[in-house]
């Protein structure tokens, strides 16, 4: 795959058709995270920070092995550690790699008002284009997984890019490359689904996990990151993985029925603006203070 083959199929805040849509067939890509073989070693966390050249930020002890409570604008990939005690007193220490799910119907993209700030490639990857980001934070509201994070200094939002720079060159994402146990897999969505179902079957047949299954939530059209869980009926045990994630109603309303009302308001506003301009003339521009990417949040 070369970069040229990555075709945009949806664009945020963009009216009209998507340029080049469906001009080339592209398989959906997918990460498979098998939580039943994750040992929480955090190699993927380190690989993500290093590959993406993230600046370090301080952490504090928080009564857990988890690096930090949630992802940060400069920390896109986090293993969540959860101690779960069963009714019979037995214990499970659940570890889940938490990162952007690359939803087929991405709430962030739906919510984003800025033209081209969020795109979905035809391979399914949802990618933020910080050049076009206006820092409104709507994508944060739109995400059912609490993933996008705002950098308060640059006023732009960041998250996992699924290593588009690597996968467009035919490489696997950095986290996949670093995983020592092979709990992380990468391939086409169909292949990953098959592999996940096989593993879930093995867990049922040989390891006594009657509810083992694959997490690929239909509420967001399926995801580009899927999980094998010991108990697929209780995803919330894995650090609050939502049982049936959907795009928030407010986002749906805002982007569809309410959009026309909004458009009317904008039109009204523009007319008002035009009248105002005719009456008072242009306003002097103020210098903005924006520190470069990499400044401490």
């Amino acid at each position, binding site marked *: 795959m070369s970069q040229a083959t990555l075709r945009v199929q949806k664009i945020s805040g963009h009216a009209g058709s998507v340029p080049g849509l469906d001009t080339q067939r592209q398989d959906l890509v997918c990460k498979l995270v098998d939580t039943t073989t994750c*040992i929480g070693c955090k190699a993927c966390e380190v690989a993500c920070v290093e590959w993406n050249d993230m600046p370090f930020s301080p952490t504090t002890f928080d009564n857990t092995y988890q690096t930090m409570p949630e992802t940060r604008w400069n920390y896109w990939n986090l293993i969540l550690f959860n101690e779960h005690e069963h009714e019979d007193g037995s214990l499970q*220490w659940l570890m889940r790699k938490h990162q952007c799910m690359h939803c087929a119907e991405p709430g962030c993209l739906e919510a984003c008002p800025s033209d081209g700030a969020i795109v979905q490639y035809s391979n399914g990857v949802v990618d933020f284009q910080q050049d076009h980001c206006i820092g409104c934070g709507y994508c944060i509201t739109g995400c059912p997984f609490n993933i996008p994070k705002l950098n308060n200094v640059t006023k732009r939002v960041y998250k996992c890019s699924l290593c588009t720079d690597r996968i467009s060159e035919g490489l696997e994402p950095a986290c996949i490359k670093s995983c*020592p146990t092979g709990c992380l897999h990468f391939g086409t969505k169909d292949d990953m689904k098959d592999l996940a179902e096989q593993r879930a079957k093995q867990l049922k047949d040989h390891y006594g996990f009657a509810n083992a299954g694959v997490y690929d939530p239909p509420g967001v059209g399926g995801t580009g990151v899927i999980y094998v869980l010991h108990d697929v009926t209780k995803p919330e045990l894995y650090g609050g993985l939502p049982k049936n994630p959907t795009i928030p109603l407010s986002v749906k309303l805002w982007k569809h029925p309410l959009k026309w009302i909004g458009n009317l308001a904008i039109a009204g506003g523009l007319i008002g603006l035009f009248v105002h301009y005719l009456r008072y003339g242009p306003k002097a521009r103020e210098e903005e203070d924006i520190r470069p990417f990499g400044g401490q949040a």
Partner: protein
Amino acid sequence: MTNGWVDIKNADMMLVMGGNPAENHPCGFKWVIEAKRTRNAKLIVIDPRYTRTASVSDLFLQIRAGADIAFLGGVIRYAMENNRIAKDYLLNYTNAAFVVKDGFKLPEDDGLFSGFDAKTQTYDKATWNYAGSGGGGGRDSAQGYTLGAAAHPPSSGAPSPPSLPQTVEFDPTLQHPMCVYQLMRKHYSRYTPEMVERITGIPKDQFLKAADLFTSIRKDGDLKKVACVIYAVGWTQHSFGTQIIRTAAILQLMMGNVGRAGGGVNALRGHSNIQGATDMAGIFENLPGYLKVPIPADKSLGDWMHRITPTPSKPGQWQSFNYWSNTPKFAVSLLKALYGDAATKQNDFAFDFLPKVDRNYSWTYLWDNMYNGVVKGLFAFGMNGVAIGPDSKKNIDALKKADWLVVGEIYPDETSEFWKSPGITTDEMKSIQTTVYRLPCAGFAEKDGTFTNSARWLQWKNAALPTPLDCRLDQAIVAQIFLKVRALYQADGGKFPDPILKLTWNYTDPLNPSLAEVLKEINGKTFVDAEDPATKQQLKANQQLPGFAWLKDDGTTACGNWIYSGAYTEAGNLTMRRDASDPSGMGVHQNWAWSWPANRRVLYNRASCNLEGKPWDSARRQVWWSESAQKWVGNDVPDFKPDSKPADHMGPFIMNPEGVGRLFAPLGAFAEGPLPEYYEPTESPIENLFHPQQSHNPVIKRFKTPDDKYSTPQEGYTVVCTTYRLTEHYHYWTKNNPMNVQLVPEPFVEIPEELAQDLGLHGGDKVKVSSIRGTYIAKAMVTKRIKPMMIDGKKTYQVGFPIHWGYRGIAEDEGKTSKTLANLVTPTVVDPNAYTPEFKGFLVKVEKA
């Protein structure tokens, strides 16, 4: 490891105990996952805490730290009672049928084996022997080998050490009351599930579940399936660590799991090259290749060889290869490597140049010696002496008394700054007279050379970066010091200059020897033209040796470490090989790097076949007897005499003079007994339930300085404590690296929820863990992963903490930690065989800080 990392993928059952490989060996741990994924293998984890490894286990049991022998003894009993043993293997490949000498006594009533002298706290081991005849100097020439020891007779008057009988009495029906099998049965009959529960804190039903699951692979005696045992320093760091590992070895031998793909007793080494350090004589009792060091009583090469070269000891009709009979070839070749032309037949190959080891030079003894003013100075390279040993305060106090200290490091560390450790006042600082030299060394990525991994593979690595500024490679520093000392000897003479003046130092750059040249030297060469009589392969003088089979005891070969011979041959540096192909699919990888010995990947692999030489499991074929070729062939290098027919009944454990695996380890093999018995840790919450009058390991000697104090429950130290490591950090080193510090920023103590409730502690509160020696202060991690346990009916808590912090590092320098060292609380008490300190399973008090 008897096996190797990749080989774990062949296992059907895995027992991880005394180790946390998912935490400490995450890359190697992939093979455990692979076995689960591809073979539906089961993983049992026994640990004081629910660990990262436990998180992917199929059965986890929480054990009291240090109670491992009680658990394993219980499993041995279970396997015997329920016929989950490998009968043919046991009979033919172990000493189960050997009859033990009259007068030998088990420790069942008083906790002592026969021969104990309470005054010296040592054993007269004369009765720890087999019944039989002959022995004591008799050499087995039946194999057609020229046994070099005969060429170096002992000088008159040297005491003859007690020896094994040449012909051992044995009872193949296993009924003789003094046969090893019956003794074991009697010995472990006391390890009932009830007793296991009272000692270990593992409820009886859970213990039985684990014992049943582990031994289920031997249901009805079927030998197809294989189980492996995986351990690390959670077993070694006890005052009976060696005996824990022995118990596991006995269990594995009884179940027929040793020598087989997917089986074995597998030590996971903690550092990238700890195996290499051990192989190259990191232990004071060894010379390279596990040759026992000469002692002052060895007046000549002959004395030494006579003392350390074993003779075969076996039932009359069986054969024993007794590979250590080649000891003189290894020893003379080592002397030739060390002293070259100065080592001649006339001067006993410069035997006099070798230091004679007169006392215990192991870690804790060295520091005790320094504390007592005997040791005056210390070179500390590649380690942080103050932080890594037990009882840091004693070590700091010892350094205050030293004249000088040289530290080679890349960071300022606790050792080089011992003189300003917390608690030392400015006034006291002025009184410390130790001169400290800090040398800028090179980091791991700036050095080339080999790492020998846990699987015994020597793997070459290249330097990734040049050394910065004036930092130097370790070998350059050592070489410069050595050459300076040599020049001083040359100029001024000295008491005994020859060992220094005549040491071989033929490197292209003497001031900075290339490690490839050193490896070549270690591999060894021949000084004369030579020919292998069997294969007719010829070598020219000064060519590299293809392997240790070529070594001679007549001074015509040189070899720095016999087990590494074959690593750098005329074919080049084989440790650089990177051919990942694996035709058998069994993870053998014959052409990846080079594995000692002789590029063999699974040790004792003859035992993977039945008596006729056919694999126990036809799906996992390692080696086998080829009738057509009349030799042993296979996917791995046979660990055996290649042309020994199965009918000869040669034992597969060729490094033992018996030729078989030792359930009963005779004579001086171990300090505290030929069979492992359960003793309590030096500091334990209860007295030994088997024999309260002999609670602890009877041969343990305590140190006597004012800093050596031991906690007791009577003084209020009632919580069992253990120490360990995190995957996010590497020893006392990565606390200087922002990435690692970001992952785990601060030290912490893991505390059971119930204990936290008792103390009114919340996660993140500061907590004080004190032993009688010192205090460790860090934040509390309140967790469900450690539960209170019932030990002999009494509720007992365990706590633990990782060791990675000290008083220099990112968090330390920013004032975010209490700057206490983990080892301020650990006791200076060591295993009597390996001298490893008891870092795990000691007593503390826990309080809110």
